[in-house]
């Protein structure tokens, strides 16, 4: 594990998202509650839509291009659609978001 401070949770709007640029591509950081965040790949497996621009509801994200819905916990597509997005370790400590950079370093090496 290689926990890196990527910013204050207040920089992500509640039920919104921000993008984190990494060597393995863009990661979307979602804030689902006052003190709850998730990190997943930003790219929808359907047509490449930017998931960070979608609507966050419960612990789910709806892609802005064609309304595919993914679980932020498992990365699985929900409903009738088939697919999965990568999920990455992230946690909140004292209002700071810590992202496990080793996850993207591995992905980048592949």
């Amino acid at each position, binding site marked *: 594990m*290689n926990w*890196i401070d*990527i*910013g204050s949770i207040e*920089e*992500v*709007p*509640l*039920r*919104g998202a*921000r*993008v*984190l*640029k*990494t*060597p*393995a591509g*863009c990661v979307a*950081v979602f804030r689902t*509650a*006052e*003190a*709850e965040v*998730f990190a997943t790949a930003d790219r929808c497996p359907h*047509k*490449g*839509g*930017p998931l960070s*621009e*979608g*609507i*966050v*509801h*419960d*612990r*789910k994200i*709806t892609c*802005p*291009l064609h*309304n595919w*819905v993914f679980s932020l*916990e498992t990365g699985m597509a929900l409903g009738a659609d088939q697919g999965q997005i990568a999920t990455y370790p992230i946690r*909140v400590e004292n209002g700071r978001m810590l*992202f496990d*950079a*080793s996850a*993207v*370093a591995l992905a*980048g090496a592949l």
Partner: protein
Amino acid sequence: MTRKLVVIGAGMASGRMLEHLFEAEPGAYEVTLFNAEPRGNYNRLMLSPVLSGEKTYEDIVTHDDDWYAAHGVTCRFGERVVGIDRAARQVIGEAGAVAYDKLVIATGSDPFIIPIPGHDLPGVIAYRDLEDTEAMIALGEQPGARAVVIGGGLLGLEAAAGMAARGVEVTVVHLMGHLMERQLDEAAGYLLRKSLMDKGIKVLCQAVSKEIVAGPDGRARALLLDDGTELPFDLLVMAVGIRPSVALAKEAGLAVGRGLQVDDQMVTSDPDVLALGECVEHDGALFGLVAPLYDQAKVLAHTLTGRADRFVNKEVSTKLKVTGCDLFSAGDFAEAEGREDIVFRDPARGVYKRLVLEGNRLVGAVMYGDTGDGAWFYSHIKDATDVSEMRETLIFGPAYQGGGSADPLAAVAALPDDAEICGCNGVCKSTIVGAIQGGAGDLGAVRACTKASASCGTCTGLVEQLLELTLGDAYAAPAAQPVCGCTDLTHEDLRRLIKAQELKSQPAVWQELGWTTPNGCHVCRPAVNYYLLADWPLDYRDDPQSRFVNERRHANIQKDGTFSVVPRMWGGITTPDELRAIADAADKYGVPTVKVTGGQRIDLLGVRGEDLPGIWADLNRAGLVSGHAYSKGLRTVKTCVGSEHCRFGTQDSTGLGVKLEQILWGSWTPHKVKLGVSGCPRNCAEATCKDVGIVCVDSGYQVSVAGAAGMEVKETERLADVATEQEAIDLTVAFVQLYREQAKYLDRPYKWVAKVGLDWVKAQIVDDLDTRQALIDRFEISQSVYRKDPWASEAGETALRARYAPLATLSLEAAE
């Protein structure tokens, strides 16, 4: 042999510890007790009932002078400890040193004071001890006194409720979006806020305190918020949180992190120094609630008497001690992955329950309105019970094992008798129920006797629910399409209920209307957001996170994730300067495609998301503003050149188009709205396939509405012929406002008019001049908020601008 024990701090934790100690081994220690407050141990938790007048100080004293005397405790109350000499094993008080064999530090916590200007003025207090409580009680004796409480957590709300009970006019200022955000989720926070408001307490959320200003007498007089609001007060209570009081321990060289660090036996880094209470840090955790402190007291007493024991930090539960606010929260309901929610709402009784499950275990519970089962849920959380067997009925509590689901009729049943169901004809619930009981057995009969749902028809669903409610199984309602899976309500019902119940926030809608999900979905959220901002323009603040990407980013997303930027050109008119600015921006940001649109605008396609604020700022400098080509709102007013240049033109169609666009721009509507103004019946502006089309003729203006030129093509229908330009403008504005107030989200005007009928629309805005004027007035109120350039605000405010850029960029080195 009797050993010497010195205890610093006579709080609830040390008091309980001494009880355990004297019980386990009376006479083992000779105790000296220091306390900075000039009194012994009292139940600090009970200060709130003292404040509200339900108890007196005498009621909450836990250890009186006789108790200390009986146990041989030397009390040094009202004396500060100035230092600890660990080498000499001495505690140095203001009145002299005392030697110890064992030392217990129980210095508790200090209230956190926000260091804004004026925080140290007289008239600003914390809520911590009896002195603070007495200051608040004294305020209640002053007629017309006003107080401001900063902090909407447990303590702040108890202070607010206590002062309000004593007749003080109280305003609570809270930084976060909802009250008690650490213990409650939004829905429960909304219910709490509502019941506090019912007690006459004003609650301001998302309010940032900027400065406390003094009056001529040097006392604090008013609080300024960063939005410019000034809140005058006689007393300001800061209750934003506590910090472990560790200065003494730190000075003595003990290991201090966020708090004074202790092990499982409550021993600090010095084996002869122990600590407990709010000043300690155990395994990274701090403590603010009393239950774990009592556990610590027991463990510490055991350690002092040589018995093996260890402190384990358990889940805790919270109850707010405010009469009439029935609230319970336990465990953890927000902060981890792999969790599921069970939500139960009963709008009629103001009940909200939410359970959080992780695997087969219950890990958190929030309850409002009916907390009778709180202890039962709390015990399952503490014991980590496997709840998979009772999962289906878990939320109904221990008494209920039969299953069942929320009643879809609950929201309508909860409406008061005088709630207006039919807005067109002013028919209230009791009138309709009365008619049904009098024999009106179906929709047609109700319409005939009460006129309810006989005009625009948007309340039909509610009338049907009243039929169902009153007649029971005898009435079979036709199936209606709900908004989405989160609710059984149709769009029409939802709109009526938002108005009838005066619901002014999204959590209010979710709770009062029994949403089955914690915070909606991508289908209902944009609709609810629109209905709220359309119905309560001054009360509700638009929520960007409930908007589709284009409206949140103020640009249209393209299939490759880039955006298109369309500046407004009023009525299709531009200037060489504007064109130069557009060309410069296109060059500067490497815009790959520049296209002229069907609505007489210029579209810059392929702009990167992070460049949006930059290109907007450049365009703003040339006087160009957002063209809202992305919004469900006014898009364009297309015009022909009219009488100014055209040899056939009968009126100034361009001028009218510009005026209309300047009045209507920025307004949000259920779906997009496009207008056209043609200067003569040759109709070069193609006005007769727009949402509103005006064709100029010699005698005046033909105003027509409800055209379409998309998937469906439909000619507009004539609303009215009018003689003056002003009348044409008035009719257009009234039509747009009627559409804003009545239509279902994502229905274009032609679809909505088909539902309500053009005759009904005419009756409202052509024949009835009062209604027309009222619509125009309401439109203006809404526009006082929304007639502004979103590009300028997004590009101008650093915080908003930042959201277009990546949060951070991880380099390969950082990642490795």
